[in-house]
């Protein structure tokens, strides 16, 4: 089944990522402070997209306030 394989891949990805941890002193955090590096660089669009996808898909990261119908889900 694909499910355990996908979990494995994500964990691997995570492992590789985390293994690159170093200490970053405050005066070196210039790049990290840039708005492009924010976890959500376009919050207005993210709100809109999650509303749209949530109205047509049944997974997590779906729309707030319900999920079946009658939730502004069109």
């Amino acid at each position, binding site marked *: 089944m694909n499910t355990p394989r996908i979990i494995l891949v994500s964990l691997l990805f995570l492992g590789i990522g985390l293994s690159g*941890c170093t200490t970053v002193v405050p005066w070196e955090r210039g790049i990290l*402070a840039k*708005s492009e590096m*924010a976890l959500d660089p376009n919050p207005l669009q993210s709100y809109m997209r999650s509303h749209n996808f949530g109205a047509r*898909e049944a*997974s997590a*990261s779906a729309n707030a306030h319900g999920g*079946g119908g009658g939730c*502004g889900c069109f």
Partner: protein
Amino acid sequence: MGANGVRSAGRNQRQVSCDNQSRRPPGNNKTLHALTSAAMVLPGLMLQPAQATEVDADSFSFQYYRFQEGKRNLFNVPNKLDPIQADVIHATGRLSLTDRVKFTFNYTRDTWSGATPVTSAPLATNGNRPILENTPSGTIVSGASPTVNTQILLDRNLNPIARDPLTGEVLGKDTRTVEILSFASPEVRNAADFGLGYEWNEAALNISGGLSSEPDYQSVFGNIGGRLDFNQKLTSLKFGLGYTSSDISAILDHDLVPYLTRTAFEGQIESRGGSDIFHEDRQDFTGSLGLTQILNKQSLVDVNIGYTHSTGYLGNPYKAMTVIFVDPASLAGSQDTLITGDVRALMEQRPGNRNQIAVSSKYVHYVNPLSAALHLNHIFSYDDWGIHANTFTMDWVQPLGYGWTITPRIRYYSQGAADFYDPFLFSQQNFSSNAVDASGREIWVDSNDPDTEFVRDENFNLIDSSGNVVDESMLNVQPKTVPFDAEELPDHFSSDYRISGFGSLSGGVTLRKRLVKGIELQAGFEYYSRQSSLKLGGGGGTSFADFDFYVANAAIKIDIEKLNFAGGLGGGSSSSLHAEHDEKTHQQHQHEGVPAGVMNGHMLHKAGDFMFGYRYMHGRMDGDILHGDNVASDEQIVAQGCSDDTNCRFAPTYMNMNMHMLNIMYAPTSWLNLMLMPKFVDMNMNIRELEGRPPPQTGVHEHTGIAGHSTGGVGDTVMSSLVNLFNVPGHRMHLSLGFSAPTGDVDLEFRRVFQIDGGLVHFGMQLGSGTWDFLPSLTYTGDYRRWSWGAQLSGVKRMEDQNKSGYRLGNIFQATSWGGYRLTNWLSASVRGIYTDQGDIKGDFNDFNGRAGPMDFPANHGGEFWDIGFGVNASVPRGKFVGNRLSFEWLQPIRDDVNGFRLERKGALAATWSYHF
């Protein structure tokens, strides 16, 4: 640190870099965006909308977007129904009340309408029945209307056999499935939420709550979330908890109700005023845990796990499952003849609870040579309905210089079907059969007393349980019917395409431009395609449900903090800073007096100044129908309210109108201002039958049930220029010349009901004038010490004889004058008188309209109106938020002298917020 020096310790501690580009310290960024990512992952619910729409600094944003679906494939009939279209406006703001306390709010209004699938069925059922229309060139198929109760031809293996939808000719085996579409009338949803957050040095806590309201669904929700930083803020741990409680009161589609089998839900359906209302509720609990870890100078990773537990009614009362009932007796025997299946629609049945888990991993990496950031995200979602889903997203945030940033993105999504999903079902039993007793004799019952059973003897006489002959003519007997055995069907079933197996691919781009003075404009576009064949691992099997959509959005964001330092950071001396503040305070006083309901009331007098404003207006009409200035009786309305050859049948009971207007004003010189005002409107109303109305006729559109109707979307857009005539201390006068562009629809239609076209919606419910209009106005304002006063003459002159629906609205003339008194240095009150004269509508609808009542006839519009207005204005005299102004005004109608027959007005409320910078 110059201009920042006056701020308190909390913020300063996080000022880590003197780099001009780093506006916000990483710690602060991380709170908001970390919580955003947590919200992203919450399965089933995004329960922290406050954080999800967080903006970096104190700011206000306004976004509009249009969602437009493409038509679905109906195979053998033309699809003429407009697909789902939604117009959404979304306002969001963030304000620091103190250095550590912040307040956030969000407001959303969705308006949508369009064709939506009710169920899916074998194409052979011809569920989308062709609508025939006679034209000069012969009879053509002009569209399709849904039918869910039919017969279907099947072969012995239960394969559907198709018949031509028009001629009935047998065509052969056809195993295709099709969605049966029904048109959903326009609906409007309003949602708002508020939040408070507290920020410590290494932690943060947020609480928010809100509600969402639409005619059939009300939700209340609350969330709490927090963040802990470790390791010199290189690591952050976040958590979130939320709860949503929703109530459903759905009026079942009256076209569908006679054909819908709803025995499973009889207990929850209330019949009232000709409508069937389904009542249910649902609860959702969510919890999430996340970790953000900085990896090195230019990359970070973010992992979140979310869990949702939902209980209650988790289905959709407008969706049905097609069940084909086949008599097992007809399958017996060895012939090859075709059999008939009984096609029925049952309200869908989903489980009463659902548990979902989602795991999201995000990696952000700065690509040095291109100065861009790469965002990669994967979400895996799993639930106990059997739906497993994967989402892969990639965004590339690329600054282009000169304040431009472009972000292209691509997203791939795949989901497996729910365990109880099926396009349609077969059941080997009769939908209903005649009851028989132990000896095989048919049982008959009296309709007036169904508990007493009879059978017939060999002479066909009716006999009771003791064997006595009964006189049939005294009773109303019918064969007793036994409904199908629900136990033979699965416990849960649904044909909702949203829980089927499929994959989707979407791509889009967002463009942002930072202008001077902290204003940012954003625009974006995205295209999405749902394809059964894109499902990971294949086997979607639902290509009949494929569709696509596009979304286009535009937004404006105002960074409040940046603006106030625009002067200071220029390195001016402290005296020039004071001068700026004094100037602002003085202008505040000038503008204070203008009541909220007055448009174009003041000008900006300094070149380079901006004003951004938001105005909300709510108007209501209800009560009596007036004729001239007298109350009209139903008799009068029926006889005179419509036309010479048509008597009125219905009259309006109430009408609400909501308008949201954005006011963007710029002063290129000290004597000229340019203004742009987009408008977003929504209206709702209901009607009642008139006493003494003519009886209903077949083929004529009637209004049944208790549901009212609503419309909403983009309204007309006004562009004007304001010219200063004189501006001396104590007195000002300016002229405004504007144009209204007809961006609001004037061809909105009611949906077909009972196979009768609804026609164009009433004049007053269309979204705009449909014509280019000229809007001149002359305004005078004055002030002396605490007193202020003003007067305005304004008009609307329609510049075209008719809009695309064949009519034009009446011209308007308005005269108003007011007086105000400043109570404190930040609060003032006003009283105003208004006279309005509006002409009636010229021309008439050029397409079918139901002509149900006075609101459908041009002569019943316009008139003379007198109102009195009471207002309060509050403005921020100094400090961080100087330049902000909030006003409210209530307009009380004193006298209406209407043209023809029109509903009386109850009043209107205007609320404006403006920010002058």
